[in-house]
């Protein structure tokens, strides 16, 4: 699994970015942003997307200048100790996001499909699957991300069904809410876009990496577009009062789907969502393990085994809606600080330091 044999072609970065942004968040993001910004929430989607686009630009700026992954950059910029501390924060952050994604999905399974399911068993099975994926190297992880978009993309067709009942007048009047509401909604929207920071870890494994920014930006654009369409559809279909009662609005959409061969389409949607979920968690695990392996000389298998045991244990310790909400909030706040402002700060720092070097010369 050395770097040379594990390279992926640049346009797969598109799929990696879309996959990490379109995860479990798609199923239930609408309630939170509509609570803050009402029928103007679609603008929050765009604003948040633009901010993340800026973030991606910043990441590429940083990565292109140093040509190494985030762990290396932080070591270089901050020295061994402070850099090591920051690296640990990042690794823990990615790990926690992975855990939160899995836990959210399990909550959906518990609420909609199997109420009495044994969570230990299911998480262990997921952990085994993820172990099998990540041991294949980054090419396999990128592959499962690609398949995790291509195969579930048929679900987009199901949004034809609610379209009949939408009232697009609900979107008017535009800009009815204060700037503060919009800012809050944008912040809450960003939980869905989190994860692009993983780009900073798999950057060295991309062929022609300096020119791959267009694919990342395109990926971000497509995610924004998808979320935008969903938001507009949600605003048009539900009333504001209704939406505050539906935790998972997208799943409720699938309740409207009528097909001659199946009664309740949500089950099929949730089952397909496994294929959407597993690649995200795999990517987070891979990124964390790669960070850890740069500090400890352990065999890949040991690192993954430990991480996955941690995943199983922590996923099962978080019980109940309240705890999940708290956990997700905490992680998304941390993520919001880390992914955009901190990255831009790194960009500034790195520019200043390289200018200094040039001045010295």
């Amino acid at each position, binding site marked *: 699994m050395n770097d040379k044999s594990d390279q*992926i*072609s640049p346009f*797969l970065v598109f799929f990696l970015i879309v996959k990490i942004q379109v995860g479990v968040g798609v199923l239930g993001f609408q309630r939170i942003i509509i609570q803050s910004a009402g029928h103007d929430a679609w603008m929050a989607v765009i604003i948040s997307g633009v901010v993340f686009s800026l973030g991606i630009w910043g990441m590429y700026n940083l990565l292109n200048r140093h040509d190494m992954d985030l762990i290396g950059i932080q070591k270089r910029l901050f020295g061994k100790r402070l850099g090591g501390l920051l690296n640990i924060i990042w690794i823990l952050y990615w790990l926690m996001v992975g855990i939160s994604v899995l836990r959210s999905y399990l909550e959906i*399974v518990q609420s909609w*499909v*199997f109420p009495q*399911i044994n969570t230990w068993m*299911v998480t262990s*099975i*997921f952990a085994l*699957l993820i172990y*099998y*994926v990540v041991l*294949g190297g980054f*090419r*396999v992880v990128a*592959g*499962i991300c*690609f*398949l995790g978009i*291509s195969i579930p993309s048929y679900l987009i067709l199901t949004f034809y069904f609610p379209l009949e009942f939408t009232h697009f007048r609900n979107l008017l009047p535009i800009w009815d809410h204060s700037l503060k509401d919009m800012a809050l909604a944008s912040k809450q929207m960003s939980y869905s876009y989190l994860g692009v920071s993983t780009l900073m870890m798999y950057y060295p494994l991309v062929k022609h990496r300096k020119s791959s920014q267009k694919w990342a930006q395109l990926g971000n654009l497509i995610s924004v577009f998808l979320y935008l369409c969903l938001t507009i559809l949600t605003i048009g279909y539900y009333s504001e009062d209704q939406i505050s009662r539906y935790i998972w609005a997208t799943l409720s959409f699938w309740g409207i789907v009528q097909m*001659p*061969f*199946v*009664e*309740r389409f949500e*089950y*099929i949607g*949730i*089952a*397909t969502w*496994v*294929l959407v979920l*597993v690649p995200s968690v795999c990517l987070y695990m891979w990124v964390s393990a790669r960070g850890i392996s740069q500090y400890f000389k352990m065999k890949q298998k040991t690192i993954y085994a430990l991480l996955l045991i941690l995943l199983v244990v922590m996923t099962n310790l978080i019980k109940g809606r309240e705890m999940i909400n708290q956990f997700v909030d905490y992680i998304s706040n941390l993520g919001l600080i880390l992914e955009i402002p901190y990255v831009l700060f790194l960009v500034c720092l790195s520019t200043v330091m390289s200018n200094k070097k040039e001045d010295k010369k």
Partner: protein
Amino acid sequence: MKRYSFFKKQENHKSTDFTDVLEHLQKSKDFTSFTLNFENEIYCVSFFDTLIDKDIMHRDLLPFLHTNSSTLEELVHNLPIEGLVFTKKPAELQSQLLMGYIAITLNNQSDQAVLVKAANNTSRQVTLPEVEFSVVGPKEALVESLDTNLYLIRKRLPIAELAVEEIIVGKLSKTRVAVLHIEGIANSENVETVIQRISDLRVNQIIDSSYISQMIVDNKNSPFPQFIDTERPDRLAAVLGEGKVVILVDGAPHGLLGPSTFFEYFAAFEDYFLNWTIASFFRLIRFFAVLFSILMTPIYVAVLTYHYELIPKDLVSTLVISRSGIPFPPILEALILELAIELLREAGARLPTKVGQTIGIVGGIVIGTASVEAGLTSNVLLILVALSALGSFTTPVYQMGNTIRLIRFPLLLMAYFLGLLGIAISFCFLLVHLLRISSLGRPFLEPLYPPRIYDMRDALIRLPFFLQAKRPIEVQTEDTVRLEPKEDSKD
């Protein structure tokens, strides 16, 4: 050019001299040795009765021995036969006698011999393909003799660049394995990998080409085959033109080709003989049949065990009626029927032909009908299982059909444990497995992943020949032009 494998070095130490060799071989009843007295010299002729073609000996050799040669070296020049070898090495004498050569020694000299090639080359006649029969197209199949197979391929590719490397593998069987490729088209890395892996084999016997296939694949633990196994020489000739490497084994009527991708296992060669629209349609049918075959019974088990709510309301009454009175849960029902079908298939394969056909019909119809009437299984499930079995037989490559039947069982069990979620997880597992395996180092799921749009012209669908002007990217050929561009008609 012959290459010898690992065991050659050991043999060189054993044999001592000619008389010892001949004495040792005399112990076999079918080893014959007689002397011929001519005026000047007395020749001793030795050979294995069962290995040689007696016609060659009586017609081409014995009448001409009367040549007045004083030494064996002169005899080599005077005998009007091709393929004469003059040897002084006892090891060569022994090995060539065992390959069907006739040894001529002078009675008073026992350290030199002349070897005459007289091997018996009877083999099966070239007949219809049994496994990959096609309605249109050539109907020749490979036979067990390597030389005949090489003839069948060479006559379709009469170019100098078709290179045949021969390797002897197997300490006991000394099987000739031929590796074919077209120089200038096939990627030399692929060729070198294949030759290297075959030369490194240290087995005792190679009975069939599937032995080679199992021993040199990239992923030995995967149930998916990684070399396509075919008995059609026209298919082998066509893929050689695409840049693949072909392996032929003496004694095996199947040839191997690599590197292969997952989608090629669903491409029957007949697709190329039909119009591209029809061929694409058939390929898609095959693909959906296989998906249906893998997923239908697990979905039945999952829905009836956990997700009753999924069944459309018109179908609920039918299913409830068919399930009523059945003492087993859906998983047991499904396992019983699946195992019954597998039993039928195995029994039909092991019985002699005449009895096998009757059992197949009787077993299928009687067991099926009787079990439904006895109330042991539901008729809906019987239909699904029968259709799944049919679906698994649509794959043109036999090994892939076996794999499909095998992977249905883990999916069944996962459907029983976790319902639809279990099916999704095991399907994901299957996809990851396919992503991880490779064929001769090339990714197995190409052109799906890594996505190569150019190669998709011949994967799930087949586009017309004029749109497939270049060779597939997955084989990484050295020369990519397959369809010569049209010349300027103004000239």
